[in-house]
């Protein structure tokens, strides 16, 4: 692959892949590593992919498998590595999804079980279809539907609970200032 083409690929997919990695790992450094490993895989094997329409699925699938592999090695969730906290009680509105910001949405997503978090993130990020989600996560379409439905219910209740004034503290990573994708 030519350098310009690779740069185009990185420009197009780095941000959504990083956000997917962040939702999975719940840790900024691990998300960086995971995203970089995904592009390293592409540099090794990407030219074997003949169908350009499959690039998106290929990248997200590789990232997800890398995450599963790293999780097997670590055998842990990374809650202990979250770098700072944000008290959402004082910063969120009274209704679900009203003036919803990135931090609140990601924090609520992080509270979900991984089985729901992965399909929901793919659904919301980069407009993945139910078929693409099934392909990336290697699960049947019926499972995608039920996990998204249940995930949405859980996400809504997390956001409502947060908004209802329970004062729940949701951990957030330190977001670097001036870096926006």
């Amino acid at each position, binding site marked *: 692959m030519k*350098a310009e083409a690779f740069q185009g690929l990185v420009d197009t997919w*780095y941000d959504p892949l*990083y956000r997917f990695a962040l*939702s999975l790992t719940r840790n900024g*450094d691990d998300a960086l590593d995971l995203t*970089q490993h995904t592009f390293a895989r592409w540099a090794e094997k990407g030219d074997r992919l003949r169908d350009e329409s499959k690039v998106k699925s290929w990248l997200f699938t590789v990232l997800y498998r890398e995450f599963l592999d790293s999780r097997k090695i670590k055998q842990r969730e990374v809650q202990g590595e979250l770098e700072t906290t944000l008290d959402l009680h004082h910063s969120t509105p009274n209704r679900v999804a009203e003036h919803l910001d*990135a931090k609140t949405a990601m924090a609520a997503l992080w509270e979900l079980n991984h089985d729901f978090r992965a399909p929901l993130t793919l659904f*919301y990020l980069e407009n993945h279809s*139910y078929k693409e989600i099934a392909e990336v996560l290697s699960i049947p379409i019926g499972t995608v539907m039920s996990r998204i439905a249940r995930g949405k219910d859980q996400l809504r209740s997390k956001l409502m609970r947060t908004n209802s004034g329970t004062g729940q503290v949701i951990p957030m990573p330190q977001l670097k200032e001036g870096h926006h*994708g």
Partner: protein
Amino acid sequence: MDNNTAKLILGVYRASGDDAQDPFFKDALQHAENDPFLRQWFSEQLRQDGELAGALRNVPVPNDGKAAVLAIMGTRPRPRRRWWPMALAACFAFFLVLANRFKSHSGPSIDLPENATLADLAANLAEHHASIGLMSPDRLRLEEWITAHGGPRPEHLPPGLATMAVIGCQTWETSRGKVSLLCFVNDRKQSVHLYVFDHVPEGSTLPPMSQPRFERTGQWSMALWQDGGHSYVLGVPDGGASPKTVESYFST
């Protein structure tokens, strides 16, 4: 179709409208059209999905990660693969395996020329064994990784490197001992490689870090010095770099 089934199907309908022509949703959409309660539920669902999707797409992404990927993997076009280099490599690997079976001890993972200078060794590693074991912008994390993999850890860095963005590291077991690499990116987005060699004979002849030896080897402008029992080679590939660039990393 009852409302629960319709909700399950419509739950994966994208707020962008990209699924409008997908037959999978046809019956559920029709059902929502005819049922006021379901229609209202679906409308609210789409609104919330749109809000959540918009919010998640605004999660900030650190720019240095993208720069690191491009610096490491995107700087040089990959040559087109042909069958014969693969066949040659396979033959070579086969003979290597055969040769190793007759050795009484396990050899190092990389054979480096015995008579080569440290600068040649660094250029050899850069040009023939380019790889990164861990990519991270956190220098402490990289140094810990190097230590965990038994590589020589850089103790003191030239002033110009101490403030430069770091992107990854590697260690090798070679016929000339353990070698570590810290990879930086300078403000011109060039890769800057720092190789640390463990106790090589030539190291004792090198000057201290305060007065490094500058030289050009192959396509690389280099600085060499010794510190704390380790030998250091700092290399910047040509193509904009000059010996003066390398020298500037040592001025305070």
